[in-house]
């Protein structure tokens, strides 16, 4: 029960952050693919920098153990990502931002979004046996993490990732690596 309450509270903060970042708006999601508004990229990379630094620090101190790491099977992760991007650009949401947008009272999130996800879930569940095992079998590294797979220090990797993110933020915000939207 306690776990359910904790999860509910975490979900509320999650949805709140999506709303405040503007990701519950169609144009925010699509415009990152048009390079006219890079908020999605800034939001995701900041979240990654904060969470990876925090989690590896906490693990180093022995305060957390990692849950099941999402599995790496190269073709499936990549092809899944490629198909996912098409859906994102068409709808202007992903499952999380759609749930938050529905909470804001947007009917074009609540109705076609939720019905679409349920339909997609049924299609996947009914074709799982034919589709998933063959893809999952190609180049499968199980629950790998980069520090162990490449034998690099996690500290070094996270430092590099952070510096790269900061450089990218600098290029976007100060050097102007962003297109002007000529159809505003």
């Amino acid at each position, binding site marked *: 029960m306690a776990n359910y309450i904790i999860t509910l509270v975490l979900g509320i903060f999650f*949805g709140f952050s999506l709303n405040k970042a503007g990701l519950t708006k169609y144009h925010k999601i699509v415009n990152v*693919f048009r390079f006219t508004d890079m908020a999605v990229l800034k939001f995701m990379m900041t979240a990654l920098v904060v969470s990876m630094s925090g989690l590896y620090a906490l693990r180093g101190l022995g305060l957390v153990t990692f849950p099941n790491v999402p599995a790496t099977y190269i073709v499936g*992760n990549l092809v*899944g990502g490629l198909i996912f991007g098409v859906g994102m650009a068409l709808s202007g949401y992903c499952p999380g931002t759609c749930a938050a947008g529905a909470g804001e009272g947007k009917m074009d999130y609540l109705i076609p979004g939720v019905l679409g996800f349920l339909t997609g879930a049924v299609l996947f569940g009914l074709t799982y046996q034919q589709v998933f095992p063959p893809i999952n079998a190609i180049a499968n590294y199980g629950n790998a993490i*980069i520090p162990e797979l490449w034998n690099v220090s996690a500290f070094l990797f996270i430092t590099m990732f952070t510096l790269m993110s900061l450089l990218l933020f600098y290029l976007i915000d100060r050097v102007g690596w962003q297109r002007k939207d000529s159809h505003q």
Partner: protein
Amino acid sequence: MKFILNYIRREEWSPYVAGALLGLVGIGAVWASNNLLGASGAFENLAGMFGKWIAPAVFDNMYFNFIMPPGITIGVVLIIGIFFGGMIGAATSGTLMWFKKGSANSDAQWKRIFGPQTWKRWVLAFVGAVILEYAAGIAGGCTSGLAISGGMLLAPSAFLFIAGMFASGIVTALVIYRNRY
């Protein structure tokens, strides 16, 4: 204090501040419940639950029995939280859309590019949502369950997924926007 309250009331935050908050939520999930965030899996649990009510024989397969068991899982609780989080976020800035004019077709840019018809927005959104959920199944998660949750643990899968997502998102936007890109 006044500054913080005023900031909370703003409709849009700096993506860096909002992103840092999501990062803390990601840490919180591991620290407080040894769990990862994720949204797409919840729809699988719900689809299995509805499916088993409507057509139990069709949904009596390995996937809906064992891989993604039906019911109100912890993932479903999380998306209920996300729903209310979005609601609270919009309420603090006075931008709730419930029962308001324009809530059926909520984005000005969409209307400018594709026209005012609500059915068009809904058809494209529905098709997009089907694609998103199926793709998340193949990839092993969506933007939250794989890209953020996997990325923060430094799972290679997350970075492969993000690369694929941006590559095809850019191509799709080019195709559907054409000369308006």
